[in-house]
């Protein structure tokens, strides 16, 4: 189980409703786009990853966007674009039916066979390697700039983002005292999952000046009471969507698995929107800037 999967399952129903509306809107809008001289020469894009879609909007290339996946929820306008389905269950003909010049995805998108099929139909497929680092954010920016033929804008954005990032990382590095142990809980469906190593959450905790309370395994595992007591997190970090799925913060704390943790005693909880928190997109510096003081406050 991964974060994108669960967050998207939550919004999928809403998207399905919106799909019909978006499809008819899109059909109406397409002839207009085709006539405008700008859209004629600029490549048409499909983005398969919420963070990549964010970059498209930041580069002002949303007019070139002909489709996005169901994890593309920000900015709000992205929700209205034609949806090509969940990032890991793409359909070759579905992608091609939107007549893109390029499909921009990450190595977490798939199935790989479908992307091969799209390539074999003569459409450029750009794959960004997702390794949960600042480099990933830079690569997303670079690849979108290239694919959208907006490289100058992408370079300018990169300079701005790099500066923001350097500033945030400086602040984190300057922090004094003990690093808080942070447990990331993902609970968009019935069984909560906790993040081990090599996850987006693990990397985010580190960048924000915390320590992942769990180690010794990779990926996500189901949350169990004894393991959580052993992990002894100072802070529980989760997504807004998890809280929403539980029906509020009170309900969330009622989870029996959390009762024996130091975080429970202080009710120390940090939540952010799932895409902002784990997306590794251009809002990454903002996410870290928001997390870091909360981490520090919890162990002060």
């Amino acid at each position, binding site marked *: *189980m991964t974060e994108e999967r669960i967050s998207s399952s939550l919004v999928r129903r809403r998207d399905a409703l919106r799909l019909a509306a978006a499809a008819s809107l899109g059909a109406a809008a397409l002839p207009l786009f085709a006539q405008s001289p700008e859209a004629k020469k600029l490549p048409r894009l499909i983005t398969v990853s919420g963070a990549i879609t964010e970059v498209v909007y930041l580069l002002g290339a949303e007019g070139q966007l002909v489709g996005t996946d169901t994890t593309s929820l920000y900015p709000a306008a992205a929700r209205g674009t034609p949806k090509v389905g969940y990032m890991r269950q793409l359909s070759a003909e*579905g992608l*091609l*039916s939107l007549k893109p010049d390029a499909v921009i995805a990450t190595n977490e998108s798939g199935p790989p066979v479908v992307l091969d099929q799209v390539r074999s139909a003569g459409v450029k497929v750009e794959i960004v390697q997702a390794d949960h680092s600042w480099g990933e954010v830079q690569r997303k920016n670079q690849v979108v700039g290239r694919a959208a033929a907006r490289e100058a804008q992408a370079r300018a954005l990169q300079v701005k983002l790099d500066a923001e990032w350097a500033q945030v990382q400086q602040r984190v590095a300057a922090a004094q005292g003990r690093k808080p142990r942070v447990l990331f809980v993902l609970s968009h469906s019935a069984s909560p999952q906790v993040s081990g190593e090599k996850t987006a959450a693990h990397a985010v905790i580190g960048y924000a000046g915390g320590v992942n309370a769990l180690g010794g395994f990779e990926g996500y595992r189901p949350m169990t009471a004894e393991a959580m007591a052993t992990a002894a997190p100072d802070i529980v970090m989760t997504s807004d969507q998890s809280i929403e799925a539980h029906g509020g913060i009170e309900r969330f704390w009622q989870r029996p698995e959390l009762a024996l943790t130091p975080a429970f005693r202080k009710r120390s909880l940090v939540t952010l929107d799932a895409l902002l928190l784990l997306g590794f997109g251009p809002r990454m510096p903002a996410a870290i800037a928001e997390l870091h003081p909360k981490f520090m406050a919890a162990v002060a």
Partner: protein
Amino acid sequence: MSQRFPPRAVLAGCALLLAFALALGAVSGAYAISLPQLWKVLASLGQGAAADKSPEYLVFVNIRLPRLVLGVAAGAGLGMAGTLMQGLFRNPLADPGLVGISSGAALAAGVTIVLGAWFMPVLPRTLGSWTLVVMAFGGGLSVTLLIYALSRSEGGTRMALMLLAGIAVNALAGAGLGFLSVMATDEQLRSLQFWLLGSLGGARWSAVILVGVAVLLSCVAAASLAAPLNAIALGESQAALLGVDVERIKRRAIVVTAVAVGAVTATTGIIGFVGLIAPHWVRMVAGPDHRAVLPASALLGAALVLVSDTVARTAMAPAELPLGVLTAFIGVPMFLLMLRHFRGRI
């Protein structure tokens, strides 16, 4: 049973249905290809491909056509295998999915995906789809043998035993796949999910040809089993009196079923209920003669899978529905109706 039609009429009807399903599948899809464009593509196919490289040509030849061929192969294989199973077990409820052959194949495929690196000296990728097909075949074969051994009693197989054994195997395979999904890396997990839902989306020519050949061979082999299966339908001792080598026929039927289901499942994941519905519909109009039911079920199964896949491809375009979900939506109500029909005999 309602009015019966002569076998030739039924075969012709099923072939027509398949032709209709093929035509429907060829003209519909998320990517709009108009009839004149399609005609041009088909014409240039006949002349050798190199000339035409229009987007329509690429979409049709690289994506839609292999998918149609895979649909035909998968549907024919499952329909044929379902008929063989029902003849072999002398039991209308035998279905590769229901008695656990598909999930046995899927479990074996799952083991290959997740643990392949352990037990194979070479990386799984280098052997490619062959490893998966062979493993899925092995999984399907062992489940078939197991179910058969468990449910046989004097003079045939016991329905309740067979279905219970099927439930047990399905549960075991489910648990095995669940265990694998905990061990799996993220990428492997995605491949596993694909098995459980079933899809023709992964149709590439290399894989399609492999499945096509496996299904074609098993259909040819199955054809020679039709007459002996008719004899077995009278009872095994009767069949032996008629000069049928019952044990040999059974062994062959089991191997043929496992080859067809293994090859199909290895490429498409679990597509349920086709093997159950197709033979039943055919028997309703053609009667129980396997010489008609076997080929007609293969044709009808192919048509069913093609139509379901066309719906899967277009209903939510540009996104896609999982095929196994659709066949289950059609298959489960059918199955419940059949339970009602056969309730006196279970």
